């Protein structure tokens, strides 16, 4: 043994000191040396962020309010705060001096805490001591304009970069795009249709739009779209009057960009009554037709490969079953080459329609969202309440081709009102002034340049329940998206309003990677057995009917006594009923069996197979050694 001089207590103490120095004080030195191994580079600043930071025009100051002292026992929040700080420091280094960062600990009763309250940060009372914890961001742009993230939610960690970049971007571009919202659905809340005395809150989507844009809600009977509107968002044009449709038509022909949500069946309206949904008689096709698009009327797209699982109260028990018209749109169903859909992970649609270009269309039709080819058109009536998901699956016949659910349309177009503007509604006197204005403006018959419109054949995707979970966080509504529906709408508005940097950052969060194989097995099994189940149920219905008939046919129906002959018949039927029910149970059991078998096999392979092989290997080695008289020592 040689050179052991350093192996002294003093040497060890020095080593500990070096270790601590490297891993505490030295940490900032290695801050940006890291390798992001994730497929989508989730932890690396995206190009959009880098571009926003590099092209900052005016200095931006970011203040991070973080109650480090109060949070000393909160390990996970501390970890998250570190992540936020790392990210902000990276921002600052990319922006090269244009972005300054300040970390403030708003201790209780300090001036900093007053500032935090003044800027509207959310304080959260913690633990037994009841101290207030702040964890938010205030950003300052030019002219002292500021933006606030009241509380940084760990649950929104995957949207962190987007939230920060959006803040920086909007500080640098304080003038927001003016978006007009013309909707026949109650997006902005208001009195409830079911109970006129209660008020409904606005949909989350409106809240999201308001954060991003200067959102102007136009009245439902708007007859003239104001000139300062940059992008017009139209929801459910079926519910709008002719004059409003005319206004939309003229707005688009004038060169205004529009995002239009049409729907062959709005679940919201359908729930209010079967007559709803075709109110004005003006089908959206009049408007769409002028742009070279057609919505297949009265038909809803059902997709076997993208159907969502729903809980369904069946005849015998509650089942979880695929509901064909509710789609979880993923993967290649979204056009990956388009900025609007390129980054979206999942889109939830409910009873969406099919869009096709018209034969004589002069416009370009680019599908953004398509169904799989395992899809068919369902009749709207089949979905009238209550729908029968089992029957839909039993009757399913794939069309073998995908249907387009959303599309981008550009090119020259003509007016949908060649016979001039529709006459004003008679009863509406208060609008006289508006009519005059409309008359003054000359009707455009042809678009001035190419039109730019995005059409989505579903309105339900905007409803909260299809894309977002709302959590109550100390009295504040926190929205946690489980699908990219809002991102989709915002991407579309962004593209139509021209800012594309933010699009590349958005929606990298909901990265669900389901077991595709299991889903495939499940769908195959389900399709195979569902038809059989349907057949058996019908048989059971028939048997029961017969049994009832037999009971009713008796002259002395009130008598509880049965003739031996009848008794025999009834017994026979009852036996049949028992048998059929048994068959049904077998069918339902088989549905689960393949998947259970797969699970058992995987468990065996992953828990036992390799150990068994290793054990066998060791026995073989042992034999060989014993032959050589070298067995394992005891």
């Amino acid at each position, binding site marked *: 043994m040689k050179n052991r001089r350093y192996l002294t207590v003093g040497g060890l103490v020095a080593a500990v000191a070096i270790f601590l120095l490297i891993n505490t004080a030295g940490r900032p030195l290695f801050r940006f040396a890291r390798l992001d191994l994730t497929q989508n580079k989730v932890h690396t600043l995206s190009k959009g962020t880098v571009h926003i930071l590099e092209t900052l025009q005016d200095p931006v100051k970011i203040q991070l309010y973080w109650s480090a002292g109060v949070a000393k026992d909160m390990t996970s929040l501390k970890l998250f705060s570190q992540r936020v700080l790392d990210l902000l420091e990276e921002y600052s280094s990319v922006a090269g001096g244009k972005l300054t960062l300040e970390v403030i600990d708003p201790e209780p009763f300090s001036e900093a805490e007053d500032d935090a309250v003044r800027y509207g940060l959310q304080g959260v009372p913690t633990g037994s001591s009841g101290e207030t914890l702040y964890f938010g961001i205030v950003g300052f742009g030019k002219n002292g304009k500021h933006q606030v993230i009241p509380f940084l939610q760990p649950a929104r960690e995957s949207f962190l970069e987007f939230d920060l970049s959006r803040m920086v971007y909007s500080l640098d571009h304080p003038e927001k795009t003016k978006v007009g919202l013309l909707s026949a659905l109650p997006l902005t809340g208001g009195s409830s249709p079911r109970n006129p005395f209660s008020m409904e809150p606005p949909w989350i989507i409106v809240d999201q739009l308001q954060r991003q844009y200067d959102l102007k809600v136009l009245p439902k009977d708007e007859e003239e779209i104001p000139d300062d509107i940059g992008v017009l968002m139209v929801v459910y044009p079926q519910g709008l009057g002719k004059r409003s449709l005319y206004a939309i038509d003229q707005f688009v022909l004038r060169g205004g960009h529009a995002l239009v949500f049409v729907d062959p069946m709005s679940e919201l309206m359908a729930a209010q009554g079967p007559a709803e949904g075709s109110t004005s008689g003006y089908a959206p096709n009049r408007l769409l037709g002028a742009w070279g698009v057609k919505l297949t009327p009265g038909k809803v797209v059902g997709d076997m490969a993208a159907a969502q699982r729903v809980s369904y109260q069946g005849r015998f028990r509650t089942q979880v079953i695929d509901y064909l018209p509710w789609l979880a749109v993923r993967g290649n169903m979204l056009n990956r080459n388009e900025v609007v859909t390129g980054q979206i992970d999942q889109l939830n649609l409910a009873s969406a329609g099919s869009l096709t270009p018209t034969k004589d269309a002069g416009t370009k039709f680019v599908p953004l969202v398509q169904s799989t080819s395992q899809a068919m058109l369902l009749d709207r009536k089949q979905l009238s309440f209550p729908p029968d998901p089992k029957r839909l699956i039993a009757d399913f016949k794939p069309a073998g081709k995908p249907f387009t659910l959303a599309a981008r349309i550009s090119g020259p177009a003509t007016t949908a009102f060649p016979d001039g503007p529709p006459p004003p509604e008679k009863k509406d006197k208060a609008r006289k002034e508006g009519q005059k204005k409309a008359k003054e403006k000359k009707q455009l018959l042809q678009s001035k340049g190419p039109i730019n419109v995005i059409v989505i054949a579903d309105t339900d995707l905007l409803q909260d329940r299809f894309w977002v979970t709302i959590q109550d966080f100390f009295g504040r509504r926190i929205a946690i998206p489980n699908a990219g529906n809002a991102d989709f709408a915002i991407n579309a508005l962004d593209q139509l309003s021209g800012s594309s940097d933010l699009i590349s950052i958005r929606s990298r969060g909901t990265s669900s*990677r389901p077991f595709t194989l299991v889903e495939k097995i499940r769908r195959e099994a389900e399709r195979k057995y569902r038809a059989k189940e349907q057949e058996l149920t019908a048989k059971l219905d028939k048997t029961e009917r017969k049994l009832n008939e037999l009971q009713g046919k008796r002259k002395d129906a009130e008598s509880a006594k049965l003739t031996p002959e009848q008794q025999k018949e009834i017994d026979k039927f009852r036996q049949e009923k028992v048998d059929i029910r048994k068959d049904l149970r077998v069918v339902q059991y088989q549905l689960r069996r393949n998947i259970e078998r797969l699970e058992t096999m995987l*468990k065996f392979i992953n828990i036992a197979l390799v150990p068994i092989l*290793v054990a066998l290997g060791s026995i073989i080695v042992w034999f060989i050694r014993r032959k050589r008289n070298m067995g394992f020592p005891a």
Partner: protein
Amino acid sequence: MKRMASIYRREMASYFSTPLAYVFVIIFLVLTGTFTFYLGGFFPRGQADLQPFFTWHPWLYLFLAPALGMRLWAEERKTGTIELIMTLPVSMMEAVLGKFLAAWSMIAISLGLTFPIWITVNILGRPDNGVIAAGYVGSLLMAGAYLSISAFFSALTRNQVIAFVISVVGCFAFLLSGFPIVQDFFRPWLPSAVVEMLGSLGFLQHFDTITKGILDLRDIIYFLTFIALWLLAGAWAVDRCKN
């Protein structure tokens, strides 16, 4: 280097000439598999990633690494073969490192033999293989950290059971040091800055970052310096007992 390699080979041969290596690998595989499928709910969770697999590694190593590390020096001391090593023309660091690397290789082999789970998840869905690769790297680095602690305690005693128990306690402290339970223990008698620092020196924080798919130089440096420090301490302990 050559001399270290010969120590390494001697150690590896001793693993495989006894049932020890096989038993260790089998226990490791059975436990990881069982934990992944039963405690981690791998299948009902329905997500094509290896999170339920890696989540349990810190807790598995808590017992498996000391089980492997306890014999590193304690056995040599008990059987007296440590005298033999001392007479060899190798430096103390080479001897310590060679033995440590052999034990680390055992864990690497065991970890490598979990490949069916990687194949499984790729058949079931489309996982992010970059994150999985990072998870394996992180797991191996963390196993090294556990082992280095065990090697140190093994050098302190000639009784393997004692070495095992102390190692588990030592590893447990570093596993939990980011948790309030350990911080509360230190808080009354240490300044809060030191407590904060102790918290950031725990395993979990660094392991978590790596399993998210980020190979951060800071985390890698942490694990490597951690291993180096405990190996140095181990060398010191071996040297001390000899004197």
